[in-house]
């Protein structure tokens, strides 16, 4: 009886000594990031060049921007596998608008609105019919990219206005790109939302116990709907940046990106089953993945081999802590 009581004992205040702090996921991840940084700096003489490092940020900021929204969704025990397809459909919408002569700011609005609309469609299906989000978003993943194919076929949209290139190619200050600044600002915004607002507490509550959350007066369905819209919106923003960066739209744009986004979130310590995770973790994970792929790129390692590395990372970051626990517990 006493054993059970001690199992269920909830402390008034969490232990904040140095040991649990050191063993926090974010701290370990940060250590990994530092090790990779040092390793890369030794492996290639080109790594420490500020312009090269700035180039490296381009490769992950779009994914990381979506990962912030995806983190909220996964904490709420949902998932959105359609984000890469949303990029495709939003990019196609912008391309079509650009052909029709819409100006730069119009394109940005169209890209973001298409993303938000696609996210709302996901959210509607999940919340209105009570469907599992993984199946819904596998369906919309085909649907959205399918729409991109229907519109474009094997064609391509080019001819974006010259100043549209700002979002994906320009620098705000020295080597600091607009994309990177935008990502950092969004990271702060999402961090505040998840960790410092009531809405954030709702997200955790829903992920831990949706039924309990409903009984405590949280509008579970509405919160989830908003999260899907935000995820779509962020994919729309990523579409603006990516389209602006590469300057053209094909239906295969961002193909397979959802895998890297989910990996980033899981690597950042967010529980794939929902209920726990942190934005700082996701941000550090974004840097880890960015540094790894950039480092491998400098060593002339092809993209498909990097995907092995990412796959191994995804499985091992989840497997290792579990193995560690199993080995320590007799």
């Amino acid at each position: 009886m006493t054993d059970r009581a001690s199992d269920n004992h909830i402390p008034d205040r969490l232990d904040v000594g140095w040991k649990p702090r050191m063993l926090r996921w974010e701290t370990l991840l940060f250590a990994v990031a530092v090790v990779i940084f040092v390793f890369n700096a030794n492996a290639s003489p080109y790594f420490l060049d500020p312009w090269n490092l700035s180039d490296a940020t381009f490769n992950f900021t779009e994914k990381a921007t979506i990962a912030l929204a995806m983190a909220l969704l996964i904490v709420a025990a949902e998932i959105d596998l359609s984000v890469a397809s949303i990029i495709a459909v939003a990019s196609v919408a912008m391309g079509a608008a650009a052909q029709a002569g819409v100006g730069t700011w119009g394109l940005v609005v169209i890209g973001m609105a298409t993303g938000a609309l696609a996210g709302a469609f996901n959210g509607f299906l999940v919340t209105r019919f009570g469907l599992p989000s993984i199946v819904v978003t596998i369906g919309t993943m085909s649907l959205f990219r399918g729409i991109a194919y229907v519109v474009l076929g094997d064609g391509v949209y080019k001819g974006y206005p010259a100043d549209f290139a700002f979002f994906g190619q320009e620098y705000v200050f020295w080597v600091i790109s607009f994309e990177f600044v935008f990502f950092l600002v969004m990271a702060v915004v999402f961090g505040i939302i998840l960790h410092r607002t009531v809405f954030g507490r709702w997200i955790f509550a829903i992920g831990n116990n949706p039924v309990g959350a409903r009984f405590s007066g949280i509008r579970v369905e509405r919160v989830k709907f908003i999260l899907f819209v935000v995820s779509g919106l962020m994919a729309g923003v990523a579409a603006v940046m990516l389209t602006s960066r590469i300057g053209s739209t094909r239906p295969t744009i961002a193909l397979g990106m959802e895998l890297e986004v989910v990996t980033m979130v899981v690597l950042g310590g967010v529980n794939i089953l929902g209920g726990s995770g942190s934005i700082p973790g996701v941000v550090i994970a974004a840097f880890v993945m960015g540094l790894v792929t950039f480092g491998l790129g400098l060593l002339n390692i092809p993209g498909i081999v990097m995907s092995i590395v990412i796959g191994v990372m995804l499985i091992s970051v989840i497997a290792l802590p579990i193995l560690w626990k199993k080995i320590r517990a007799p």
Partner: protein
Amino acid sequence: MIKALLKNRDVVLGLILVMMTLAIAARFPGFIELENLRGIFTDTSILIILALAQMIVLLTRCIDLSIASNLALTGMIVAMINASSPELSIAVLVGVSLIVGFCLGAVNGLFVWLLGIPPIVVTLGTLAIYRGIIFLLTDGQWINAHEMSPAFLQAPRNIIIGLPVLAWVAIGLVTAAAVFFGWSKLGRALYAVGGNPVAAVYAGLDVGKTQFIAFCISGMLSGLCGYLWVARYAVAYVDIARGFELEVVAACVIGGISIAGGIGTIPGVVLGALFLGVVKNALPVIGISPFWQLAISGSVIIIAVVINARQEKTVGKLILRSSHKAG
């Protein structure tokens, strides 16, 4: 009687399939000529086998997103063996494909069973890893038809009683699966584990081990499809069957397999796969650009899950209501 039949999901899906085929045939009579129907079935055989593989995993509340990568890797290994030593018999190569596929599936299963990692995470990872390994093996090189032995390419194409071996393999596996799911202990265990894991434990079933076995079987079937795919399309390279796992999941969902586990029938899955097969083959006939295919299968998945959810929901609600009354 008729009303009861119309409530059966598989019957309804079958009717939709037949009506769709007839509607196309009304405009294009050639569509239901025996030769064309045979072609569609043969074309869909690999999808049917993979859908069976996915069904086994889905029943146990897991999902296997790595089956297309497994197919591609196993297919490449078999093709490489054939290219380097053409004298090896096809039986040996089929054996190799089963074993390699089994091992790749077992890797997924071990992570799920022993470490309790969510299947979607494991198979998202192996989806990338298995396909990456093909690149490591081949350095991006293709293995083309002229490098494969004629026997290797011909085996699934030989016609027996009017149908190619490929189609017979699918028919044989569907029959075997029907027996397996209906009458074997393990087959019933798959349903039990997915339907209610807690009850399954009390019934003396090892949930994790059953899931492991499901992944092994799914891997084995994917491996077999690796050989069939490479022989049918007479080429092996890094990107074969890329994204095909989604079509397989689509076939299962259309066929009424619940992603939440424990629900699904063999006829449903076969009809789901045939549905996609008919759509794919009908598009060029009715003059719609093949670029529509992805959007159509996406829409069909969404419609199918909405319908599935309604059916599953009513069952759940009824039980709750009756238990409420009893209380």
